[in-house]
């Protein structure tokens, strides 16, 4: 058996995970981009408010680990999580953020 043949037997499957993760990211690119943009909005707002991720976890009543995953930007966030983030941090995530804002600007009542 040549050196190369021996090597191929030994090295196959050593780290298939890295290649798989590349494929996963490529296939979920659009979703990943959205998650990353939400994560960036959250981090900016936390920075602006001077809040820690732990404080956000308390406000959202979730574990700090969940917030840690969220701000990495590779989580598939549920609608519920997005609504709560939007409400607590007052950042635009869903279209309802703009729709609700426009509803607030009510016309003055007729006298």
């Amino acid at each position, binding site marked *: 058996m040549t*050196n190369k043949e021996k090597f191929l037997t030994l090295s*196959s499957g050593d780290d298939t995970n*890295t290649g798989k993760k590349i*494929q996963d990211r490529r296939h979920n690119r659009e979703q*990943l*981009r959205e998650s990353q943009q939400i994560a*960036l909005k959250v981090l900016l707002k936390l920075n602006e408010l001077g809040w820690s991720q732990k404080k956000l976890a308390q406000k959202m009543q979730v574990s700090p680990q969940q917030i840690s995953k969220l701000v990495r930007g590779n989580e598939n966030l549920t609608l519920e999580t997005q609504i709560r983030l939007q409400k607590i941090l007052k950042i635009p995530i869903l279209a309802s953020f703009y729709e609700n804002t426009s509803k607030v600007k009510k016309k003055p009542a007729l006298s």
Partner: protein
Amino acid sequence: MKIISIFEERLFAFHCEGEEMNELARLLSCWNDVDYLFKFAQQHSEDIPFGLTLVELVNQLLFDSQELDEILNKIAENTNKNWSEFFKPLNNLEYGNTELSRQKGRKNYLRVYAIKIDKNCFVITGGTIKLHHMNKDRPHTAKEMQKMEKCRDYLKFMGIADTDSFYELINEQP
């Protein structure tokens, strides 16, 4: 220190002691992590290129990372492609065959460092986000240069100078 096969017999990465992942896995994990990139940009705010805001830099790095995935996938999927299409000598003045040549693969601000074993066989030693000219000028890039030297010394110590002896080392690993 271990050498891990990433894409068959063509691309390898060092797995340093105390690290959870091999060097390529670690880099890709960091460069796809918004929290990591945000903190990195905050820590290196003085190096943010002129005309870019912190948010624009993070978005650029995320885009570069996405492009890097495409480059890696393209070469890995096509056996007619050669990893030397991505990796180039670290020293721009290097010509001809240099034993265990220091190499860099780049995508805008991202750098992947490797050692060339033969024309289509590379071992990744680490990488960095490079926002300034000289590697020695910043601790995080200087550290990557030191790691590369350590890996190169290891290969030399193990008697690696060509492809055959490199494969022998892979076979001897526990």
